[in-house]
Structure formats: C-alpha cells, structure tokens
C-alpha cells in the first residue's frame, strides 16, 4: 500500500458546490494515494457533508488506498458513525450537474426508453410473424390465458364505462342538436365519435389502468424474485416467454374490445335518440350505416391495435426495469399507467393529424 498521502482540509459551512469539489479532489486522490480528511474546522455536519462522507467512504472501499479522518470532534464522529449506506441516494452523489446538463441527461434517458420500446416492438412483431419459422423460437404457450386475463375479464368494466360515457355525451349532444333542429344528425355524430375517437381511446385508457398495471405488477414481481434472471440463465428469452403472449393477447383483445365498445357507445346513442330526439332505432341504424365510411372502421381498429401495443410495451418495460423490493413494484405500476395514458394520448393526437 502506498505511503503517499493527500490531505484535504474541510471548511465549516461549505456550500454544496465546494463540498462537491472536495469529493472530486478526494476521489482523484484515492486513485493514487491515501487520503486524509482534516475536520479541525468542522463544527456541524450538514446534509451535503453527510452525503460527501458517505460517497468518499464508498470510494475508499472500492480503492486500494485508505481514508483517514483526523481532528474531528466527538459529536461529528458520533454523527458520522450513524450514517447508513441505505441513506445515500445514489444519484445525489454526483449531482454537480447544472440544469442544462440535467435536461440533456433526461433527453438521453427518454431516447434510451424509446430505443428499448422499439426493440421490444420489433422483437414482438418478429416473433409473432416471421419468427414462427425461426429455429430459435421456443413454442411457449400462454396467449389464450393472457387473452382471458387481459381481455375478456376486462370486458365488463370497459363496456359499462363506455356505455355510461357515451350515454352522457349523447344526452348533451341531443340537447344541443335539438336546439338547432338537427336531432337526426345524432346517429352520425355518435357513430363517428365512437369509432373515430372515443371507442379506441376509452378502451385503451381503461385497459392501461386495468391490464397494463397488472402486466407491470406481474413482471416487476418476477424481477424482484429473480425469476427473470432465472429465465435468462436457462437460456429462455424473457421477451419470448413474457412479452410475446401478452403482446399477442393485447393485439387481439384491444381491437376487439374497442370495436365492441364503439358499438355499445352507438347503442347508448340510440337510446338517447329514441328518448329525446324521437328517432326510431331503425332510422338511427340506417343513418349510421349510410353515414359511416367503411374506412373509418379500419382506421378505428388500427388505432386501437397501436394503443394496445403502447400499453403492453410500456407495461412490460416498466416491469423489467424494476430493481429492489416490493415498493419498487408499486412505483413501476404507477409509472406504467401514467406513461401508457400519456403515450395513448400522444399517439391519438398523431393519428388525428394523419387520418382526419
């Protein structure tokens, strides 16, 4: 071990920038020589100083050189001995970054997430299509089970909520249309609204909260219990084993649910039309059939398919990202719902520009 030393005197009341410069000097010194921290002028231990001592102690543990503290008062020695390893937020140890650098770091993080989502999407699409003929494919089952769990079991809540929302929308529209004597346009309005917008959007948002969160919670629990590591050590791709069945199930389930939800929304509109606009059900359905272009139905299905992918991939990614304990599962689930809804709304805005 080297006999060379570097002594760093510490100032009382130092601000975080100065403390960080101590850390940088100390870290650099520990690479080459022993480090002595002189605490003769230190009277109190601020939060930043505690963080500094924890960080420099960690550095010294990872170095061949020793760290020695000299001239420290008994009170400070006592406080230092009470610093727990778990008290150190890892990111704060290197928080010398300014706002622009933080912004840059965030941008890179977002870029990384998008890259991973694209990777998950390409893998999922490949293994569900061309990959069926790939020799490396492992024929794991589970799509039907996932279709029941993520799709069928979500159907009642999706249908009830969509019916109620569509009923309210139709009621408010009927009042307005009746004022202008245009009640007969309710059918077309409801049809367009449900298939073009509300059906896919509401279904996807409800599924993000219900099925997306369940995907994240399940995968995150597996990550916490080292089950994903175990899969990888057995040579089983977590994408093929975990993502693929859910991706396939959501690719079938979300468009079907969305289509059914749109029809249910139209039924809600028909009830309102009958009650408040004196339009018979036959007239209502005829107006719907004549007014809605077939292309709209395809757009609606495509849109809901993309929404389903957004929910599934974000849910899986948030699950895979989990490290640590059970509390991380809750955080990941919350993130999944928030990011999925944000993703759905962004995609919806993009579709509005492209399609309409």
């Amino acid at each position, binding site marked *: 071990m080297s006999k060379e030393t570097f002594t760093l005197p510490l100032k009382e009341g130092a601000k975080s920038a100065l403390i960080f410069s101590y850390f940088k000097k100390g870290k650099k010194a520990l690479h080459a020589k022993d480090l002595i921290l002189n605490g003769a002028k230190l009277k109190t231990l601020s939060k930043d100083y505690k963080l500094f001592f924890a960080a420099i102690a960690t550095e010294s543990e990872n170095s061949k050189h020793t760290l020695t503290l000299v001239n420290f008062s008994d009170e400070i020695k006592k406080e230092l001995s009470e*610093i727990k390893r778990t008290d150190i937020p890892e990111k704060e140890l290197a928080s010398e970054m300014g706002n622009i650098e933080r912004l840059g770091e965030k941008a890179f993080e977002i870029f990384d997430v998008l890259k991973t989502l694209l990777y998950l999407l390409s893998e999922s699409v490949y293994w569900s299509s061309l990959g069926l003929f790939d020799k490396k494919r492992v024929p794991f089952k589970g799509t039907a089970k996932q279709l029941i769990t993520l799709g069928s079991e979500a159907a009642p809540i999706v249908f009830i909520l969509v019916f109620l929302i569509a009923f309210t929308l139709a009621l408010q529209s009927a009042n307005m249309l009746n004022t202008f004597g245009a009640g007969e346009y309710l059918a077309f309005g409801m049809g367009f609204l449900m298939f073009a917008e509300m059906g896919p959007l509401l279904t996807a948002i409800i599924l993000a909260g219900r099925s997306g969160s369940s995907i994240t919670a399940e995968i995150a629990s597996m990550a916490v219990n080292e089950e994903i590591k175990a899969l990888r050590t057995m040579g089983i791709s977590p994408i093929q084993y975990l993502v693929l069945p859910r991706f396939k199930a959501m690719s079938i389930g979300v468009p079907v649910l969305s289509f059914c939800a749109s029809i249910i929304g139209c039924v809600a509109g028909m009830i309102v039309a009958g009650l408040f606009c004196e339009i018979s059900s036959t007239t209502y359905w005829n107006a719907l059939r004549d007014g809605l272009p077939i292309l709209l139905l395809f757009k609606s299905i495509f849109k809901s398919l993309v929404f389903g992918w957004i929910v599934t991939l974000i849910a899986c990614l948030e699950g895979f990202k989990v490290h640590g304990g059970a509390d991380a599962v809750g955080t990941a689930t919350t993130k999944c719902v928030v990011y999925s809804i944000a993703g759905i709304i962004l995609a919806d805005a993009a579709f509005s520009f492209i399609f309409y």
Partner: protein
Amino acid sequence: MQPILEIENLKAGYGSKVILNDVSFKVMPGEIRVILGGSGCGKSTLLNNILQLEKPLAGNISLFGNKIDARTPIPDELRKRTGVLFQGGALLTSLTVAQNAALPLKRHRPDLPEDIVKAIVAENLEKVHLLHAYHKYPSELSGGMRKRAALARALALNPELLFCDEPSAGLDPITSRSLDELLLELRDNLKISVVIVTHELDSIKTICDKFIFLKNGYVLLDASLEEGLNSKIPEIKEFFNRENNETQTGNNYFNFNFL
C-alpha cells in the same frame, strides 16, 4: 486437467463504478469452490458476470475451455452444461414444481416426448427428495423446499457446473445442513463442480474445497479451506473465527478510520 471455469483478470461494475478488479480463479472438475467476502464486496456481481447477466468491463471468462464472448449470450451448448440455484429459488410462481423443473428441458430439448420429460422431472425431484411436491405451486412450499425444487430445475439438463447464490440464506440450521449434504451428494454421485456464494460459516466448513475471499473488489486470498482456516491474514482470520456474523461480514454503517 482442464479447468471447468476459468476467470482471468475480470473487471466488473456499473458505468464508471468499478466493483471487481483483476479477479482471477479457476474451478476444476468435481470441485466445490466458495466465493467469500463481506457485504458489498462484489460476490453477486462476480456471479452475475460469469452467468452473463451483466457484461464484464474487462477480462476473460472460459467455460469448459471455451472463451465466452461478452458481447453475445452464452452459446446454448455451453449453457446446457450449467445450472443455477438462486438465493430465493426464483421458481416461476405461475407454474407447478414439476413445470418449473421441466422448463430447461422444454427450452433445450423440445424434441423430447412429454412422458420422457415427466420421467426426467420425477427423477430429479426424487434426487432432491421432493417428489411429493410434484403438483404443488411454489407458494405452497417452505423456503427449504423451494430451494430444493430450484435445485431440481437446475439439474434438469444434467449440468457439469452448478452455480449457487447463497443457498443457505434464510434457512434454519437443520434445513441448511440438509441442503449442504444434498450438494455434497450431487458432487460425489454426479461429479458436478459447484461454485457457491455464501456467508454461512457452517456451510463453508462442510462443503468447501477451495475458496476465494474478495475484499473491496480484489481477491484477497485464493486457497483451500485448510489454508484459509490457518491463514494469518487478519480479514481471513477474523472471518473464520467470527462469532457474530453481522459484525464481521460488513454491516449497514460506514466504518470510518479516525485518528
């Protein structure tokens, strides 16, 4: 004799943080090699790097005489010859014990008929004395049973090298002892080499042939158990003579050196 596992100058860590530095050791056929060291010294990182769950920063890893490329997954033909027992068992909770134990076979031997798979699974469960739990789910098993079920899964492809991450952690002394005996039995009967990360002194004294002791990411000692027990190195001496596990293996607080 060719080593089954050879680590040369391994450097590992996360980003700019280096956890392991210049780690080298060999595992010979039929040997039980224990990885020792205090909390946070890099034992699990070492295991994760060997298993390619994390990518090494530098150094070489050779499995069965074949150098592993850090950029690509371990080839199936080498992976098939290894088994892994994780700390908590890491059984898939949605599958039964038998389905868990059959997973490696489904992945690497999809050609095997179902009845052969069932027979192999039953044989492996018998080896770990857990045949009665064939249809049970992991949630219905005790900690020790879960680890034995995970061991049956690790044995599915008749591995030549078994990795165990703290197999005795969280087990009572009797269950822990029976797991040690099981590992010795597997080594003696099936000639499996074993790499174990553990803290448990009793376990180490029962099963260890050779060990490496890690400190601050470096190998402090690579020796046989006997050499370790007679070592004059303070950390090793302290480790083998400890009475209180927590104080010797590193705890949750920093240990500042005051003058």
